[in-house]
């Protein structure tokens, strides 16, 4: 049983690995073709070390699906701004992404291949950040709510206690929730846990290690059941006879009392026989008991 399950698990793992590998290789090819130059360009511009994670698997699925359709792609940029405590927002970095608009639904535009490059902190910004660490205050960031219309109505703001960010360097993690070209929310924080109470500790390096995740919307799952199927199911269920139970499993509730009664009767019969055969002994025994009783009564009287 166990070996079987292990084999199954291994097989399953293999399956996952192969499928994911397949996807990745597919995706990587495209990535290299279309994106290698641009990505490199950005990387050369930025002095920091953007360790970009493009974890938008569903969006990549979309792109693979859409490849058959002639797509019109365009590259867009939108800024990330930050603020220290209650100060004003100032530019902090740039998000670069590829806008895909499928031909059949002209309004359906989606962002893929989000990259982020952070500007290095200036001296004043470093000072500001240190002040935040000391005061256990908030480090705030914002991005425009519409990536096409940068001067749009609102900014999506997020903030984190500054003391959550420092590790070895500064670790940050973005989760961007998008709907078409609109950014709904940006979740900003450290990639791991943030211990409470927050200790004051300074980091060694002034470089950001950024992780970016583009989160698409989940579709509400619904197990499709049709009433017919259920009926069939039921019909089948009725056809299948329940496994035959043993005689004991069926009638134990009658057998146990019966057994008890039989045993009771047998002991009584044996007693009777005993009484008849060794009446003398019985009388003696009774006398002994009587003596004991007398003793005990005496004890009680005292």
């Amino acid at each position: 049983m166990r070996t079987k399950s292990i084999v199954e698990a291994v097989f399953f793992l293999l399956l996952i690995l192969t499928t994911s590998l397949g996807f990745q290789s597919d995706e990587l090819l495209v990535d290299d073709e279309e994106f290698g130059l641009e990505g490199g360009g950005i990387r050369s511009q930025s002095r920091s070390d953007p360790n970009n994670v493009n974890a938008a698997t569903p969006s990549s699925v979309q792109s693979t699906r859409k490849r058959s359709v002639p797509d019109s792609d365009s590259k867009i940029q939108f800024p990330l701004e930050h603020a220290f405590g209650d100060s004003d927002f100032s530019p902090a970095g740039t998000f670069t992404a590829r806008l895909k608009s499928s031909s059949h639904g002209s309004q359906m535009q989606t962002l893929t291949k989000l990259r982020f490059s952070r500007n290095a902190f200036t001296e004043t910004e470093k000072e500001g950040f240190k002040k935040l660490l000391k005061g256990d205050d908030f480090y705030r960031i914002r991005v425009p709510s519409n990536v096409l219309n940068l001067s749009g109505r609102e900014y999506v703001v997020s903030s984190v206690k500054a003391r959550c960010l420092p590790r070895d360097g500064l670790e940050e993690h973005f989760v961007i929730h998008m709907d078409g070209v609109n950014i709904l929310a940006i979740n900003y924080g450290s990639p791991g846990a943030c211990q409470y109470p927050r200790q004051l500790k300074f980091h060694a390096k002034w470089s950001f290690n950024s992780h970016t995740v583009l989160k698409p919307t989940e579709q509400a799952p619904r197990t499709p059941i049709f009433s017919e199927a259920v009926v069939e199911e039921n019909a089948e269920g009725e056809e299948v006879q329940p496994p035959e139970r043993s005689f004991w499993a069926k009638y134990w509730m009658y057998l146990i009392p019966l057994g008890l009664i039989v045993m009771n009767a047998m002991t009584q019969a044996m007693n009777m026989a005993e009484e008849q055969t060794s009446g003398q002994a019985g009388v003696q025994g009774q006398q002994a008991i009587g003596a004991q009783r007398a003793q005990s009564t005496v004890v009680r009287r005292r």
Partner: protein
Amino acid sequence: MAKITAFFLLLCIIFFSSCYNTFALYEDQVGLMDWHQQYIGKVKKAVFQTQKAGRKRVVVSTEENAIAALDLRHGEIFWRLILGVNDAIDEIDIALGKYVVTLSSGGSVLRAWNLPDGQMIWESFLLGSKPSRSLLLTPTNFGANKDNVILVYSNGCLHAVSSIDGDILWKKDLAQNGMDVQHLVHPEESDTIYTLGIGDTQFEAYVISVRNGEVLKHSNMEFPGGFSGDLLLPTSDKAVVLDSSGSTLVSISFVGGEIKFQKFQISDLQGYSGVAVLLPSKLAGMVAVKIDRSLLFAKVKAEGTLEVVDTVPGVEAVSDSLTFADGQTAFGLIQQDGGKIQLTVKSSDDWKSHFLKESIEVDQQRGLVHKIFINNYVRTDRTYGFRALIVMEDHSLLLLQQGAVVWNREDALASIIDVTTSELPVQKDGVSVAKVEHNLFEWLKGHLLKLKATLMIATPDDLAAVLQIRLQSAEKSKMTRDHNGFRKLLIVLTRAGKLFALHTGDGRIVWSRLLTTFRKSGTCESPRGLKLYQWQVPHHHALDENPSVLVVGTCGHNSDASGILSFVDAYKGEELNYLAPTRSIALVIPLPFTDSTEQRLHLIIDAEGYGHLYPRTPEAVDIFQKELGNIYWYSVDINNNLLKGHVVKKNCKEEIADDGYCFESSDLWSVVFPSDSEKIIATSTRILSEVVHTQAKVNADQDVLYKYISKNVLFLATVTPKAMGNIGSVTPDDSWLYVYLVDTITGRVLLRMSHHGCQGPVHAVFSENWVVYHYFNLRAHRYEMSVVEIYDQSRADNKDVLKLVLGKHNLSAPVSSYARPEVMTKSQSYFFSHSVKAVAVTSTAKGITSKQLLIGTIGDQVLALDKRFLDPRRTLNPTQAEKEEGIIPLTDTLPIMPQAYVTHALKVEGLRSIITIPAKLESTTLVFAHGVDLFFTRLAPSKTYDSLTDDFNYALLLLTIVALVIAIFVTWIWSEKKELQEKWR
């Protein structure tokens, strides 16, 4: 020996049969632990029906859109109908002496109801061109065969409707020239009607034939300066109106289509200053003008001039004129001085005489008289007597007759805004509760009767007596705290600004108070209650103090209207203190801190985002300062589609408030919903007081899932703007429903999920780690309910027992919202055939008992649905292990079991909200549902596993024990004797 065993077995059987457990409600258990009260709401209009009727009744229409026939003798409801929320009743009248005719929904629906039993006779829809005021005229004497026409002016059209079957006989559009039709007049014994209206500066009259709707004559006349206010019609050929300056009365004579104006200066004649208001009461041959606090009565003479008859000070309400037997007309007016009401019924013809002058004491807590309706009856000595129905400021309805209040109805309870609970006082030696306790003999007698019933030797009379005893059990209506926590006070805030305390045992009103701060005054134009909070819940060291509640209200409908705070003693109903007017109130946050007198700290956020701390004591500020950086709040801006998070940071600057109780907050995060594709329609959070027993959930396969339990998760639903309308107004392809789970500290979106082809209205309930929400699926043409459960993945590696033993687990580590949560959500959707008015979930003291969803259905009933049906882990073919865990096989529809209706056969008309309160007994939860009606019951979602039922027969238990003891002795003696005999043998 066998004999003894048999005897013992028999006793055991009797014993166990007496302590059976109830798994459903039996007929004789109705009313044991539930109560139901029926109300109608504040009366708008009343029509008396006393002629030729055996049962004297009054038909009323109310602000809760109810039509009710009340017994004039006792005030009981003969029948009652609640029209929908959007079906406001405009007019009500009686036609043909047997039908109640109502005009509702802005004059577009005309219905006739049978007067004796409230059955609907007919209904017609009156369509028009543009909205206008609605008028209803049921003429009584059209001559021979035209007796059955009802004339309705609504939506710019005049309709003649047959009162027999509701057929529209003819229709005439009068909307074309912007006239505001205000009166339909039927001159005696003619078959024409006058339609009177005023435009901007002109008076218009149409003479229309009743037979076919033909306009016989149309006349209009300009009045220089124009009119203001409504037209009054003292006689059938003269109208009176105020001119635009408000200082001149204009009497208009329009007999035969000839219009004549005559002016009458109010200021000239009496030397009054101030604003004159024409009272809308219909008085025969008279008009009443309100100037300051006094009322000026003016008679309209035959030639059209006005003559001032009298000025009466301190008049609160004037009734319409009543015509009785020999053509006499009378009207009633009420003068009030505190709790003393003076009712005067005057003749319209002869001002000097009056039919009736009575002085009546009423409860001070009822406030001022708002409306009066009078009715006449023939006394035993053949003279005419009058009775008056008065509507008070607290929405209660009183019938006055012969100088006394015959009956009253507390109809404020039809419009409850918010509910909170209070524990009753602890039973003490000094507190006398003797009068509700009965003596030992009665107790024994009751149990003997019960015993007889159990052994099935009781007569029907005995059974009835047993039922009576159970229903009137004094135990449940005592005014002290009980061991099980079933007895509580429900403190309810009503729209009238009156606070009531209801006893959960029998629903009686323990005290009621019309809060002075919630009465209309110069500083507060339209006071309105918002919420109730538990201000002081004494326990431990402050046990001797009475608990108190905080009533929060606002003075207007704008967000920046000034606020009202009132503190009320929960036992006595006294207003301890009030703060009004304060700064505006946008949000009240009860903080998890109390001061030394057990007063809970509350932070009230105003419209500008400043927080104000209450109670205003230095001690409270000290407590608050310690937690200053840890207080977060969020705001949902529905108009701008924004969700924002804030943190309370520091004291306000000097120029805003110099008192030290004001705190500034700064914005932390924001979530912006794109306005072209999403619109916020519903939000839901966990109830702050909810208790969760365990964080772990053990699976069938011995695996552990950790619930993600956070008090700071907000459920939010948005739909595409197109789908904001009614169900069916949008195609499934254009309609999306998005649901969000947002952490309100960091603004982190834990889940965003879309339902394609679905639309609102969304009703959601959030409890523990799950949300259940109800919406409409346009593709399936059915309502659906979905469940989302959130599990914490970061604790998933705590399953290792070895780690637990070695202490290498993170179970006791403090949880920070700033840590990135690793959550997993599970979700599933089910069809649910009912539309829903409210959803709630049962709550118990320790959170151990399984949960039930309480669904207020469209039929105004409350349905209890086990949470197990809304489990996302349900599969089509559960394994044996899963079945043992209690997972139900997956079905596409949620079952509706008729036995699962908590309200059994009753209806909570106009259901608005369901509130659950945990009892002290873990298995039990108290449920209070309110709308126009009130309903209260006790529920045990997993049966009462921790207590014997109320009707457990202690006498039988006692008897069994006694019998057993006797049996032991008897058998012992027997065996002794037998032994002796054996020895002597």
